[in-house]
């Protein structure tokens, strides 16, 4: 198992209920695995127009393997500007 930190913003924070959440994931879990786990635990995430995941401050592909202590951010549709 490994521990990652989840940061949630905007509507994703409202759905998750916390800005910061520490999660235990199976070793070698990918971004896609984390997404599936989150959608299962927080089904309202599926209602969003999109959810991107960023790992350590960079948008990440679904295939990226996560590492111990990664900071993963849940990025719902952005609306700056």
């Amino acid at each position, binding site marked *: 198992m490994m521990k990652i930190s989840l*940061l949630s913003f905007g509507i994703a924070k409202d759905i998750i209920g916390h800005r910061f959440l520490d999660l235990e994931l199976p070793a070698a879990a990918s971004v896609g695995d984390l997404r599936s786990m989150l959608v299962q635990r927080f089904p309202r995430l599926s209602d969003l127009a999109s959810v991107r995941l960023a790992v350590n401050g960079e948008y990440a592909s679904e295939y990226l393997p996560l590492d111990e202590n990664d900071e993963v*951010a849940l990025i719902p549709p952005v609306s700056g500007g």
Partner: protein
Amino acid sequence: MIDIQLLESTLDAQQCISFVHSNDAGGIDVFIGTVRNATKGKPVLRLEFEAYEPMAIAEMRKIAEQAIEKFGVKKIALHHRTGILEIGEAAVIIAVSAPHRAAAFDACRYCIDTLKEAVPIWKKEIFEDGEVWVAAHP
């Protein structure tokens, strides 16, 4: 040269213009996005902007670097507000200087269009009867 700022205080267009001003650039284009008093006819009381700050700053810097590379412009200032904004306040100011005006216009437009797609900043509209995270749902 690039000046990226994420600020909780009022944005200053003159500061952005002064940053990009250059004696060898003939054209400056500035875009200012301001808070509208209504969305689809419904009165808005105020806005709140939330940002994933380090990533927002990094993404804004990438956009400015791409614009300089793509359009050959000289300097870019890109300032974005966070926190609570009243109606009429500036949410974003982008200033671009270039030797010739076409590049300044194109680069400025590229910056605001790309910022709206890529930068992790979220806008909540606050109405009389509730709050909505903009664009969250399809």
